[in-house]
């Protein structure tokens, strides 16, 4: 409590009159009266509905696509395949130079996950689009698929994504992001106990109440207004501009109201193809995921595997920590190379460990591409780290909170990434938590401070 005052002495007053006080949200009056306009509340005369034909296979070569029956279906206006997309192979993070482009807007020659978009059907009604989509004939040659990250990394595993050439993302640092600090093997040799555990998580779907989608209206002057629930407006605008090879000035994106996102609406998936449909037909187009698509097609949080090996002394000090993290990107990169890199930046957690060794891999498998979700890259890592901390405390017979006091990073400690710790306040936070939770810890820990010479 005292610490925060010294850190922020010049910037904060303690006569807080906002925190702890209810404040009306500016958007709530619209929500409670049903007036808030979500993208799907826009309706334009003559609007077409877009439905996707999706891959029923995890991994397959496309021998041929026959859209003739679908095109004849009553109400169908246009059927789109890969050749209709000006720049069909893209990757979202190319905007910040994280390539290569590795994902198709509409599958071209191959599908790499079950549910991948292959053909887009635009029709007068949702029903006509759905019925016509069922009439598209795609001839597939099924290929062996790989679903497990460690299998995918083995030599001889089926190659998921040829744009990468191997089943991991190649960083400038090599097959993984790496952190090396001290001598981790010497640390293990010196430790009283060594504990290695692995932790795994499944993909998690955000399941927003409003499904992903957009409504596009041509403005009549070769400019297009796209009402979207994207969480990443400018990423979407710029990527759409690349995919459609259209200057950004032709694209007018309207967003800001999202019916739940949680990170699940940052990928650029629905807008480019809907705008292309509007451009090629001259009609407004709506493309809204069904609930099934939201659950099965939209990117989930990545499955992760985290292997932690720790060396610990009987007195509670962690002397070595080795972490290998695997992020399952699924078939395409989306935001996962960044997620895996965040993991490397996050381990070994908020603890001062003299010997650290970190490798994090972004792995490709034939699973649904994963992407952002609330703290992706670190949330699962924190779960693994903190469960490991509890196990270590039990191993040496120490109270789990006292064990964390001993290892907590404090101001001035050198972090594994070679940044000195500043403004940690972890000790004070744990002291407050101990008080609030009524979890007794020894007096010496309650007297500690994040300022090392203060304790």
């Amino acid at each position, binding site marked *: 409590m005292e610490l925060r005052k010294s850190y922020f002495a010049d910037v904060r007053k303690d006569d807080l009159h906002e925190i702890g006080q209810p404040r009306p949200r500016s*958007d709530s009056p619209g*929500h409670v009266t*049903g*007036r*808030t306009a979500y993208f799907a509340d826009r*309706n334009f005369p003559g609007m077409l509905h877009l439905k996707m034909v999706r891959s029923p296979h995890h991994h397959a070569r496309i021998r041929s696509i026959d859209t003739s029956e679908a095109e004849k279906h009553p109400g169908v206006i246009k059927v789109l395949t890969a050749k209709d997309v000006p720049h069909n192979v893209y990757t979202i993070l190319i905007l910040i130079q994280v390539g290569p482009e590795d994902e198709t807007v509409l599958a071209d020659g191959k599908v790499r996950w079950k549910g991948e978009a292959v053909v887009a059907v635009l029709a007068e009604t949702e029903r006509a689009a759905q019925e016509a989509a069922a009439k598209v004939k795609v001839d597939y040659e099924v290929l062996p698929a790989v679903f497990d990250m460690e299998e995918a990394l083995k030599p001889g595993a089926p190659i998921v994504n040829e744009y990468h050439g191997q089943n991991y993302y190649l960083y400038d640092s090599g097959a993984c992001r790496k952190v090396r600090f001290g001598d981790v093997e010497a640390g293990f040799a010196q430790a009283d106990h060594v504990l290695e555990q692995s932790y795994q998580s499944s993909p998690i779907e955000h399941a927003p*109440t409003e499904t992903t989608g957009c409504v596009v209206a041509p403005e009549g002057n070769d400019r297009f207004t796209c009402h979207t629930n994207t969480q990443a407006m400018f990423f979407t605008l710029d990527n759409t501009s690349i995919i459609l090879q259209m200057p950004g000035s032709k694209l007018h994106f309207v967003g800001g109201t999202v019916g739940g996102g949680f990170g699940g609406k940052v990928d650029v998936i629905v807008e480019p193809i809907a705008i292309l449909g509007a451009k090629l037909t001259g009609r407004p187009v709506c493309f809204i995921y069904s609930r099934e698509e939201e659950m099965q097609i939209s990117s989930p949080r990545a499955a992760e595997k985290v292997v932690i090996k720790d060396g610990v002394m009987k007195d509670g000090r962690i002397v070595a920590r080795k972490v290998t993290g695997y992020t399952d990107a699924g078939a395409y990169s989306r935001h996962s190379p960044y997620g895996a890199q965040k993991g490397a930046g996050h381990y070994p957690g908020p603890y001062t460990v003299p010997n650290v060794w970190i490798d994090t891999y972004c792995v490709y498998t034939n699973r649904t591409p994963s992407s952002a979700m609330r703290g992706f890259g670190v949330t699962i890592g924190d779960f693994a780290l903190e469960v490991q901390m509890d196990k270590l405390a039990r191993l040496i017979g120490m109270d789990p909170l006292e064990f964390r006091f001993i290892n907590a990073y404090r101001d001035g400690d050198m972090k594994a990434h070679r940044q000195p710790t500043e403004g940690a306040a972890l000790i004070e936070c744990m002291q407050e938590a101990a008080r609030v939770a009524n979890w007794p810890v020894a007096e010496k820990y309650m007297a500690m401070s994040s300022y090392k010479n203060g304790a």
Partner: protein
Amino acid sequence: MAKVPVQFTLNGSEKAEFIDSGTTLLNALRDKIGDTSPKGGCHQGTCGACSVIIDGELRLSCLMLAETCNGATITTTSGLAVGGVLHPLQRAFLDTFATQCGFCTPGMIMAAKVLLDHTPNPSREDVVEALSGNICRCTGYEPIIRAVLAAARANPQNAA
């Protein structure tokens, strides 16, 4: 597709439309009548975002055919505020921070209104039960439960 006539009372005013046979009430309200306050979160009866009140009963408009609603009296959340004055439930949702993205809110308010219409002084369990068909992914439900209880308390008839 054959067009069929539908006619009902929506929030006090009479509506008549020709719609494609088989159109859900949700789509008829949103696309034909222009009342977008009921939301489509699943179109399969699992999320409650499309909830409306038909002749005093809570209904999922995504599971009703519009043509079966001829002659009905329908209430939606957009019709609750009278003369710009919020309904006590709307007021309570605002005051207790019971909305985040707001997508579930119109459906929640419908479910809560039917509860309070039938049970003006509900227990917490009554509220939980009444909202059990409505999914909210943002708020964690507690603020919504508090809002409904606050709206019930605000009812002068409950001042004991």
